Structure formats: C-alpha cells, structure tokens
C-alpha cells in the first residue's frame, strides 16, 4: 500500500514540477473555450446554450492531450520497467498512475470550469452542474485513455494514433456528461439518470482500464 501511495505522490510531484506539463492541459482548455466565441459568434444567449457542450468538449480534448505523458516519460527513463518488474501488481500500479494523472491533470480542469463558465455566460447553477458532471466523468476519460496510452507506449507511437484509438471509447462519457448537464440546466429530463450512468461509466472504467493497460504493457514491453 505504501508503495502505491509513494507512486502516486511521485507522479503528482513530477507532473507539477518543471517539465511535467500537467497545467498545460488547463491552458489548452482555456484556449479551446476562448476559441469557441470566435467560431460561433459572440452571441451570449447562444454561448449559454452551447456552454456545457463547449466545456465538455474542451475538457475531453485537454485530457486527451495530456494522456501522452502518462507512460512515455517513465518509458524514456526506464522507470516503467522497474514498475513492471516490481512486486506490486501491475494493474494496481496502473490504477495508481492513472489516479495520480487525474489528480494532476484532471482536477485542475474542474477547478478552472467556474472561470470558463463565466466566459460562456453560464449562471451559477449551470456551472455547478457542469463542474459536477466533469468531476464524475473525467476519471472515466483518464482511465479509458490510459488503455490508449499504454498501447501507444508499447508501440512507440503517440500523438494522432492515441487520439484515434481513445476518442471512440470516450464518446459514451461525452454523451452522458453533456446530457446530464443539459438536463440540470434546461430540463425536461431529470438530472439523476444520465448522471448515474456517467458515474457507472467511471466505475466501469476503473475496472477495465487498469486491466487492459496492464495487459498491453506486459505483452508489449520487451
């Protein structure tokens, strides 16, 4: 257990220090959201209506952008080999790494959401709803994205291939995330049902993600 907490603490520390690049995700999130008014026009009513979708899309892209870092840095300095060889099960180690990555790169996105919601003319309740759905949904993005990151690192291919592999898997999260926030803002459906499915997707990805990532690391690293 202490090995896992040490791993989490190490990953967070590396991500937040110089060269870690965790906060670049937030900057990217901000840039995507700022780009939107230029694309659809500065109509505040329209922006308020599109707001949840824009925030979710921005968060999805930002978390995709930082996923590349999940295993590559460790692979480059060979600490990934040590993690694979160590006595803690690789599945748990993968889960710990993903958790650390989510804390370092996913949580800042949620913290930034209220500010960005202001830019999109969202009121307090809507912003809170979007932030809540992001809190429930972004772990699923990180944990399913981890599968793609593990594949990419064993193949020595990152970037576009990772995005192509991960994006189809994250479509359900996007659907239910936006559906839950829309339901909270405009109705007429209830907030509960899509939100619970979103939570279920996250819990499901906690199980599938580490196992698939560990399998691909075990099979692929040599």
């Amino acid at each position: 257990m202490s090995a896992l907490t040490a791993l989490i603490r190490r990953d967070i520390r590396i991500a937040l220090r110089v060269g870690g690049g965790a906060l670049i995700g937030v900057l990217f999130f901000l840039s995507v959201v700022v780009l939107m008014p230029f694309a659809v026009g500065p109509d505040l009513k329209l922006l308020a209506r599109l707001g949840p979708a824009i925030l979710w899309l921005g968060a999805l892209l930002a978390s995709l952008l930082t996923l590349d870092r999940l295993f590559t840095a460790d692979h480059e300095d060979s600490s990934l080999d040590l993690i694979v060889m160590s006595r803690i099960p690789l599945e748990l180690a993968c889960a710990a790494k993903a958790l650390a990555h989510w804390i370092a790169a996913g949580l800042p996105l949620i913290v930034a959401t209220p500010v960005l919601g202001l830019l999109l003319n969202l009121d307090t309740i809507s912003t809170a709803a979007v932030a809540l759905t992001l809190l429930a949904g972004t772990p699923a993005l990180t944990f399913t994205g981890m599968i793609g990151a593990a594949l990419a690192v064993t193949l020595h291919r990152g970037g576009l291939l990772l995005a192509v592999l991960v994006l189809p898997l994250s479509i359900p999260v996007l659907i239910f995330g936006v559906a839950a926030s829309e339901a909270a803002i405009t109705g007429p459906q209830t907030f509960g049902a899509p939100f619970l499915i979103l939570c279920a997707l996250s819990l499901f990805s906690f199980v599938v993600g580490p196992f698939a990532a560990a399998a691909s690391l075990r099979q692929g690293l040599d």
Partner: protein
Amino acid sequence: MSIARNAVHDYQDARTLTMSLIDLANPTKFLALTARVLPWLAAITAILLAIGLYQSATAPDDYQQGATVKIMFIHVPNAWLSMFVWGVMSAASLGTLVWRHPLADVAAKSAAPIGAAFTFLALVTGSLWGRPMWGTYWEWDARLTSVLILFLMYLGLMALWRAVEDPSRAARAAAVLTLVGAINLPIIKFSVDWWNTLHQPASVLRIGGSTLDRAFLIPLLVMAVAFTLLFLTLHLAAMRNEILRRRVRSLQMLQANSRAA
C-alpha cells in the same frame, strides 16, 4: 485394469484431437486445407447469394413500407456481420494473448477490413432506408450512434495495424484494443431495448418467436446465411493472403540479411 486402459485410451483420443487442432493451426497445413475448401465455400456462397437475392427481389412489397422493405434483406445481414466479425476478432485476440499463436494474429488482422466494410454497408443501407421512412439520412439515436462508434473502432484498429512494422507486436496491441472494444457489442445489441430509439427493436431473434411474416423471414434468413458464408470465404482468402505476405516479408528480410553479411 480395464478402467486404466480406458483412461489411457481417452487420454490418447484427447491427445489426437488436440494434435489435429494444432496441425490445423500450422500455417502450412492451414494453407493446404483452405486451398481445397475455398472453391467449394465460394461456390456455395455464390449459389446461396443468388437464391437469396432472387427471393428478396420477388418478395412482396410491405403494406406500409412498399418496395423499400427490400433494403432490409441487405441491411440486416450486413449489420449482423458487423458485430459477428468483431466477435470473431475478439476470439482471435484471445488466441493471440493466451496462446500467442501467429495464426490468431493473422485471423484478427485480416478480419478487420472485412468487418469495416460490412459495418460501412450497414450504415449506408440503413441511411438509404431511413431517408424515405424516417425522412432523414441520419439520426443520432442509440443504435445508429453505437454502430458508428463500432465503425470508428474498426478504422482505429486498422490504423493501429498499419502504424507498426513488427506484426507480432502490433498483434498484441490490437488484441487488447479488440477485447476492450468488444464491450460495445452488447451495447449495440441492446441499445434498442435500453433506450427509446427510432430504430425498431429486434424482430427476428426474440422471445416469443419472430414477428416477421414468412414471406420476409425466409429470404432474410437465406441472405443472413449467405452473407455469413461470404464472410467466411473472404476471411479465409484474406488469411491466406496475409500468411503469404508474411512469408514474402520474412524472405525479403533473409535476403537483405544475407546481402548485408
């Protein structure tokens, strides 16, 4: 004594059975066997397809849908195969990950483009049917969206196969992705039951018997069998090509090596 002899006998029986399976998994044996089977399979497929197409063409018009009901005879087999092929690929992926068998890699790799083609045809025929019936080519309902995701995953898988030069390394990565993607299959199957969708629920395979009239059911079943055989034929042919392609590749590598040395 006789019990022991029987046990030994059973053991030998089981052993010969597994041996013959292993023999089949030997690429050379596989090539020899498929060379004999393929012409027959292709002929049966062609005959069944001809019968199915004739029956579909002469099937009566639906009282509501008119002649557009005939699109169903193409659409449903394609949609069924789009999922079936992913199932075959998942089984092959298990073979790759558990037994590390090269023939399983070959099976998974050569099935992907065929499955993508079936999925694409299912989407196209569905949207051609949707235009007169629903008044739109595309609707973002659960069944259509999940099949579109399946199509994207086929393309992603093909991109993965093409991104890596070493086939066995690519095979293991693709196997993991295929098994993860298999989660989508039950979602597609039950999407029409779980959500209120525009796409109609299952009517052929359902509890309480099919709701289709025999005039439609029989051509549809013939077409489904014909398309499945078509997939088998194409898949075996593609696997043969892939095995030969790999042999050419390793021969070229040998040649390059001997030249360098």
